[in-house]
């Protein structure tokens, strides 16, 4: 197990900059989730740490060793791929034994390690099967097993759950988390799914356009987003944004141009008395909660989250919307969060 640190890391293909000046320190035994929309450079970052992509500038240090010019096999890392990348012509056992054989371990040791790992992942009965005879979830487990038997310094997971169905994804999420705790492993996990990021991460790294927008624990990021991008990306349904040029809201910090309010903090109020007025467009009834979609006269769309017990106003009625002062997030016109006296505190 080891620490990983990235200093001023940059990646570009010709003139296209994919990752720009990224600095990040990962502690021993931490589960870091790198989250962002597709094309934000998160997978490239992981592949640079793995040694599958060259590093244009900056340094990557794994376990106190600069690895910039080392081959993947010299970096003491293990990776789980999105498509699992299991060797299709080998049995599960042979898949897991592959790296150990190359490392020159003797047969007894290999068998022992695989047995331990297989028990950990409940794979004992599948060891003689080929990958194509396994279900998606089982393949995923084998891919993890292949990484675990090697006992590497760092685990790298590249969207490992995106090929699974929703139910299995939730289950595997919990398993990964439990496993990581049990092994005390340093794990970097890339995903585009913000729910996955929220539930798994010790700390999450929110990336956009090759730049780190914010690093922090899931709740820190949720309650204290640093930019409009983070505020809109983390949290489902996303945060509502009101353009301050169209609404007369006081008090407002200087330079603020947008105010963001999470759907669960938005409240109905009599017409004309709130932050804005809007018309009820439609409902999403999810059982435990109801999402009310609203549209203002100038076309802005808002979502308001209601406990199901509350009765929402009828469709097409106009209502006022408001939120407590502490739940108003102000941003300047570059999307940067403005820290004011009345910044919402973490609950």
């Amino acid at each position: 197990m080891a620490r990983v640190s990235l200093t001023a890391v940059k990646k570009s293909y010709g003139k296209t900059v994919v990752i720009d000046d990224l600095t990040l320190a990962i502690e021993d035994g931490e589960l870091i989730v790198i989250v962002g929309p597709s094309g934000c450079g998160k997978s490239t970052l992981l592949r640079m740490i793995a040694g599958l992509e060259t590093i244009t500038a900056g340094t990557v240090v794994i376990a106190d060793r600069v690895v910039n010019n080392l081959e993947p096999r010299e970096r003491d890392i293990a990776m789980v791929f999105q498509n699992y990348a299991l060797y299709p012509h080998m049995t599960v056992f042979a898949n897991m034994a592959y790296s150990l054989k190359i490392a020159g371990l003797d047969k007894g040791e290999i068998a022992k390690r695989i047995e331990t790992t297989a028990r950990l992942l409940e794979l004992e009965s599948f060891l003689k099967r080929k990958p194509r005879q396994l279900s998606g979830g089982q393949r995923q487990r084998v891919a993890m097993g292949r990484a675990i038997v090697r006992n590497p310094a760092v685990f790298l997971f590249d969207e490992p759950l995106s090929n699974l169905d929703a139910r299995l994804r939730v289950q595997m999420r919990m398993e990964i988390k439990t496993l990581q705790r049990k092994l005390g492993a340093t794990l970097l996990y890339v995903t585009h799914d913000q729910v996955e990021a929220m539930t798994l991460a010790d700390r999450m790294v929110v990336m956009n356009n090759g730049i780190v927008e914010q690093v922090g624990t899931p709740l820190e990021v949720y309650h204290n987003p640093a930019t409009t991008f983070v505020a809109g990306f983390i949290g489902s349904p996303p945060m509502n944004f009101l353009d301050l040029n169209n609404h007369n809201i006081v008090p407002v910090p200087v330079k603020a141009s947008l105010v963001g309010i999470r759907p669960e903090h938005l409240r109905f109020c009599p017409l004309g008395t709130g932050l804005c007025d809007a018309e009820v467009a439609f409902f999403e009834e999810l059982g435990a909660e109801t999402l009310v979609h609203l549209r203002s006269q100038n076309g802005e769309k808002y979502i308001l989250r209601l406990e199901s017990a509350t009765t929402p106003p009828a469709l097409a009625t106009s209502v006022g919307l408001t939120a407590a002062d502490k739940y108003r997030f102000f941003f300047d016109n570059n999307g940067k969060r403005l820290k004011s006296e009345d910044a919402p505190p973490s609950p």
Partner: protein
Amino acid sequence: MEKRVFFRNKWLPYLLVAPQIAVTLVFFFWPAGEAVYQSVFMPDPFGLKTRYVGLANFQFLFTDPYYRNSFATTALFSSLVTTISMSVALWLAVLADRVGKKAGRYTTLLIWPYAVAPAIAGVLWMFLFMPSIGVLARALGHFGYTWNHALNGGQAMFLVVIASAWKQISYNFLFFLAGLQSIPRSLIEAAAIDGASFTRRFWTIVFPLLSPTTFFLLVVNVVYAFFETFGVIHTITGGGPQQSTSILVYKVFSDGFVSQDLGSSAAQSVVLLLLVSGLTIIQFRFIERRVQY
């Protein structure tokens, strides 16, 4: 999921496959049947009438030392052509695959030999190695090596093997390259992270996953070496010297059309037919089992 189309009309499916069947009947079954028929007859020296001789043609064939020798020649020739053309093609394909997308121009250049007709390829190589004026033959002479494939059977065999293999390399190269490119990149990356060197990755991951392509090419190349190399042999050595490059298919031609022994030629065709069908069946039965599809 399997999708199936059902035809309401009973005759439509037969109508649709009719052209294919007609072509096979006219160009394969008819001549093949004719060959089987003729193999039990022997024409008189003037070709005016034929006499039924039973299996005498076959009997004669298998007591003929030249014919038995031709089996050994064919075995040597086809295994050399297949091995050389496939291994060189695989080597080139691996290199091209490593270069990646930029290898386009190189790939195009490598495909060209395939467009050369066998006879032309033969002439080309013959001129290169012609003892009197051939560039390579004279170069070898400079190093003190006498090259004359018109006299030396070993050299003649070497030359027809090289010429035949050379022509087939482009075809094999294309298939190998396509095969290599269809192996998911993440598998190679996973193996690299697992600690495998380039050579080790090739033999433990790439080569086994390439086996469907290799198997297909093996069948194609053996058939090529058996039949389609006729033009090359005809132009370079004419089967000589001393029938040292007379492979079975060449003997069918030279015995039948040059020596006018049509009965023996027909019998040889039948033997060849059985041999190739047998070989293909063996390949599918035994090699296919170890192939990873």
